[in-house]
């Protein structure tokens, strides 16, 4: 919402400076987005007279002008096609900064002819995009006068950002009222003497949709003369960036911005029969004033004549019945439209208009007639003619409501004491009526008709605080509930942080990728869940909620490889989506590694990533998150986006805690990413929480004073026997003594029978009571061999 300082002063009597006003506006919640004071920028530009114009001796398209600047006559070289003797325009002397071209003028010699300054185009002054010629001013423009003053641009323009609740401040008067209440001056009275009708309106108004339009006030004008607006009106509109059109249209726009009272002027000779306010008919269309044709539907309010829709109520007028220079008879509309319907229609058709902006926020229901009267005076004054009696259809909606305010609530809610008298003063200055007071001091307050946003006590408290000033509220420390605070995170939440930092320590960097992905990518990862395809995606490649994080990470690996970084380690802890419900999203820690796990190096052999890198990551996450990793089982039934022979799932009983492995080459191929890529997904929510136990003590540690000893066993087993079976068997052979079993060699080939493999285990025995004797060790060895043989059918390699 833009307005000029002088426009504000039409309503506000004040001595405040521009800076004070700007600061107060922001403090009132009318946030100042910018102040444009063009008089400063345009200071060097003056009205000048071209005394003579000769062709440049050395250039066909240039002219040599003698320009009278009011103080001297200067020679200026000019290339504008309209540069000619007698023209009045805008002159910039050397040294002037030209805002439209971002240069500072220097005295120059153009093709051998000295040039002292410049005659300017509108673009050079940032007035418009016009640059085909220099500005031409009327013959009576006073030479030597500052152009900004002459053009009425000397008036600072203030731009405020309006919150959606403040329809009243979509008019300059509302802004002035807030400033006055805040002590920055006095609100001037608004003259709104009714104009007596000279005849009865030949048009009647029928409201067929009272919900959509509760009140419609119309007035017929005959014998008006439409034309350009007078300078004051023209300048006001130009200053706030509005394009003046014709006096009739400009008057409606002026009232819109002045009082937040949108109006519409029909050319009465193009309206057939009279006005009907109704809902649009199926298939009906409207060719609007903006040159576009809109399809209408029965949810939209139209202003129709007896034949067709002539305007979209509260949004935009129709082209056919719009006012032109030739308009003689006018029908002027001031109405109230349903806010929700107005907003929905505007949104549906994509029409942003000054009328919609105000009517969807809710205009003053008690100012329909007074707005019409103000406009009537201006039309009669500027365009002449005579006005009919008012035609009023419907009635002023009931807006009076009595609210209560306990003055103590201001301190209780606001944290600042505002004296009771000051509270009532503020409310009255804002237009509230204090209609009574209860014995306990509770005030009965009727908010003004223009403040539909005030519904209850909290709103009244806000008004008092807002005008009193938020700055006056003393900052108060939030009291502690206890001396020491309790942890902010639950065990589950804490796991997320531990997971992230564990993975980062392991060399993976944390990514945050979209919760979306492309539908076809989701298909590679089990498919999108029902109800998780966006109705209005921002683009086709972000149109579903991701069923797995891996797709996004693999694509990120591809992008990094394209940039020349092929060795990639990325993880993300975030949601994966199964169902559109609160329990339909899982917190997943997913990660990928691509390229080399060990890069080429003088001391190390390069090694590409493999499934065990991903398995190690998954296990590290599970360990960090507190899963009982020693009890996990590995199964080989990972889903289809993994390599079927190089992937696995980590389960606790039947519950899948994690899956890992090489990514399926088809998936990589479809995503255009070079392999191998390995990945893992850990389902953090699936990890059981530690059992609630008494206290924090851990079980007592048993540290044996006896040396542990290692024994190696090489078994020959079938080639498909899983190593895990050997390990478990060896561990189970003597649970008290066998502390650890590791696999130090897996071999297939010479000296091992076809279809078999050799698996070498290193078993650590930890005696706890005494040193073992050689026969005892021998006996345990035999137990291990027997257990492995029983579990796998394998035998010791001879």
């Amino acid at each position, binding site marked *: 919402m833009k307005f000029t300082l002088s426009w504000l002063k039409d309503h506000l009597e004040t001595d405040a400076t521009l800076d004070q006003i700007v600061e107060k506006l922001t403090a009132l919640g009318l946030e100042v987005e910018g102040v444009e004071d063009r008089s400063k920028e345009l200071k060097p530009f003056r009205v000048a007279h071209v005394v003579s114009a000769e062709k440049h001796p050395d250039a066909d398209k240039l002219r040599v002008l003698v320009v009278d600047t009011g103080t001297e006559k200067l020679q200026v070289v000019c290339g504008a096609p309209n540069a000619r003797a007698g023209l009045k325009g805008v002159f910039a002397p050397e040294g002037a900064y030209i805002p439209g071209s971002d240069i500072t003028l220097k005295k120059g010699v153009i093709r051998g002819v000295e040039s002292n300054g410049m005659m300017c185009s509108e673009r050079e002054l940032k007035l418009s995009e016009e640059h085909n010629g220099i500005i031409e001013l009327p013959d009576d423009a006073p030479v030597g006068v500052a152009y900004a003053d002459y053009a009425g641009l000397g008036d600072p323009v203030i731009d405020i950002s309006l919150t959606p609740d403040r329809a009243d401040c979509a008019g300059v008067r509302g802004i002035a009222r807030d400033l006055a209440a805040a002590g920055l001056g006095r609100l001037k009275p608004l003259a709104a003497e009714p104009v007596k009708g000279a005849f009865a309106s030949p048009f009647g108004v029928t409201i067929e949709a009272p919900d959509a339009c509760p009140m419609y006030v119309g007035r017929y004008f005959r014998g008006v003369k439409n034309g350009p607006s007078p300078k004051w009106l023209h300048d006001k509109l130009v200053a706030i960036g509005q394009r003046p059109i014709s006096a009739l249209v400009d008057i409606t726009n002026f009232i819109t911005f002045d009082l937040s009272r949108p109006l519409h002027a029909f050319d009465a000779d193009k309206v057939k029969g009279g006005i009907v306010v109704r809902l649009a008919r199926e298939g009906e269309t409207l060719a609007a004033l903006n040159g576009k044709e809109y399809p209408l539907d029965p949810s939209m309010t139209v202003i129709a004549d007896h034949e067709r829709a002539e305007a979209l109520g509260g949004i935009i007028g129709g082209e056919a019945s719009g006012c032109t220079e030739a308009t003689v008879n006018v029908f002027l509309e001031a109405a109230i439209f349903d806010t*929700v319907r107005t907003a929905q229609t505007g949104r549906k058709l994509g029409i942003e208009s000054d009328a919609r902006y105000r009517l969807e926020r809710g205009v003053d229901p008690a100012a329909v007639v007074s707005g019409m009267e103000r406009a009537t005076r201006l039309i009669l004054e500027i365009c002449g003619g005579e006005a009919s009696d008012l035609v009023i259809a419907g009635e002023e909606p009931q807006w009076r409501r009595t609210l209560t305010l306990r003055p103590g609530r201001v301190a209780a809610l606001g*944290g600042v004491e505002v004296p009771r008298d000051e509270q009532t003063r503020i409310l009255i200055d804002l237009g509230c009526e204090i209609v009574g007071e209860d014995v306990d001091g509770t005030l009965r307050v009727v908010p003004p008709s223009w403040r539909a946003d005030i519904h209850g006590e909290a709103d009244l408290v*806000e008004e008092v605080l807002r005008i009193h000033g938020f700055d006056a509220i003393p*900052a108060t420390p939030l009291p502690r509930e206890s001396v020491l605070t309790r942890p902010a995170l639950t065990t589950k939440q804490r796991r997320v942080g531990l997971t992230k930092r564990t993975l980062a320590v392991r060399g993976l960097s944390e990514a945050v990728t979209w919760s979306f992905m492309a539908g076809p990518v989701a298909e590679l990862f089990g498919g999108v869940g029902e109800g998780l395809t966006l109705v209005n995606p921002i*683009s086709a490649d972000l149109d579903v909620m991701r069923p797995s994080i891996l797709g996004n990470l693999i694509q990120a690996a591809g992008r990094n490889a394209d940039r020349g970084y092929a060795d990639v380690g990325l993880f993300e802890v975030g949601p994966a989506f199964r169902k*559109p419900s609160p329990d339909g999203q899982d917190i997943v820690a997913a990660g990928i590694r691509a390229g080399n796990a060990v890069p080429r190096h003088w001391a190390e052999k390069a090694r590409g990533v493999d499934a065990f890198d991903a398995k190690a990551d998954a296990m590290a996450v599970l360990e960090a998150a507190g899963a009982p990793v020693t009890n996990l089982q590995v199964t080989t039934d990972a889903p289809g986006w993994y390599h079927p022979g190089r992937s696995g799932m980590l389960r606790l009983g039947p519950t899948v805690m994690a899956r890992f492995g090489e990514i399926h080459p088809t998936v990589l191929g479809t995503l255009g990413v070079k392999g191998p890529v390995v990945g893992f997904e850990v389902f953090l929510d699936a990890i059981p929480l530690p059992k609630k136990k008494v206290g924090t003590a851990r079980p007592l540690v048993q540290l044996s004073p006896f040396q542990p000893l290692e024994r190696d066993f090489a078994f020959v087993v079938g080639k498909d026997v899983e190593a895990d079976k050997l390990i478990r068997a060896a561990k189970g052979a003597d649970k008290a003594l066998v502390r650890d079993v590791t696999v130090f060699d897996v071999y297939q080939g010479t000296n091992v029978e076809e279809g078999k493999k050799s698996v070498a285990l290193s078993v650590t025995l930890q005696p706890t009571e005494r040193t073992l004797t050689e026969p005892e060790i021998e006996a345990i060895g035999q137990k291990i061999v027997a257990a492995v043989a029983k579990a796998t059918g394998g035998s010791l390699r001879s």
Partner: protein
Amino acid sequence: MLDALKDELLSQVNAAGDLAALEEVRVTALGKKGRITGFMKELGGLSPDERRERGQQLNALKDEIAAAIDGRKADLARAHLEARLQAERIDVTLPVRPETEGRIHPISQTIDEMVAIFAEMGFSVAEGPDVEDDFHNFTALNFPPGHPARDMHDTFYLPDAGDKKMLLRTHTSPVQVRTMLNKKPPIRIIAPGRTYRSDYDMTHTPMFHQIEGLVIDEATHMGHLKGCLIEFCRAFFDVDDLPLRFRPSFFPFTEPSAEVDIGCSRKGGELKLGNYGDWLEILGCGMVHPNVLEACGIDSTKYQGFAFGMGIERVAMLKYGIPDLRTFFEADLRWLKHYGFVPLDVPSMAQGLTR
């Protein structure tokens, strides 16, 4: 005569160039057939007095030679080790074996910092789903159907689930609703998380993060809101005298509502935070609207409190000088290495938020 022997043997010891030569000297002097041993054997033929005197002389000589041999042995061993170590010289300027350490994303780090600060003020962390319904995201938060404020949210919609309009939450405020529906006051929570709006340009991404704060009890007022946010902003941005400005604003779910600016300077195109006279908007807040309390089953005549919401990327960009919002979501390793955080740099109020 023994003096001459001693000189001869000592010179042999010192001349021994290696352990083998030294052993030869030892055998020559002290071995079974050694020269000192030989003299010892001759002692038997002497008178007792002579024997005692001669014996003492011989023992002293023996000890002296033995000590000289040990000393020489140690010298040789040292020299030998020295020579070996010299031969083992490596090029220590060679690069070490490859190790990679990952980085924590600035969003996670920023959230951890915020949690550390708010934890000190007694807040705990609450969460809610990304896929929400119209009730939790709008209706319960006092957005009347059709209200223009809904327009400001550029909502992503999912297919309706029965009579529920499903959407991606446009702010973290539905966590307020879920918390109040499930818990009785006093309430003091923060809720960081992903949020979604259909907007994609220089300064908007379709997904971003917010942190929500909610305090509900019987006495919390706007002064507390100011106190809480001033403490937070000064700690978070690490500027002790950072000024805050509370401007009246409008949100459907708070009344009164305010937007909060922090002091800054934009001189020379460079943004600096502090008491420099210029202002930068960073968050919205206000006293929870009675309609919201009632919609969540909380008696608005008894309870009151405040709520605030803040964009996480925005404050991370301000704090860490990250220029472009969109880069947060590109997973560019170079960017992560540069703007990310080492994993053991865990923010805490005890150890400091920022290294």
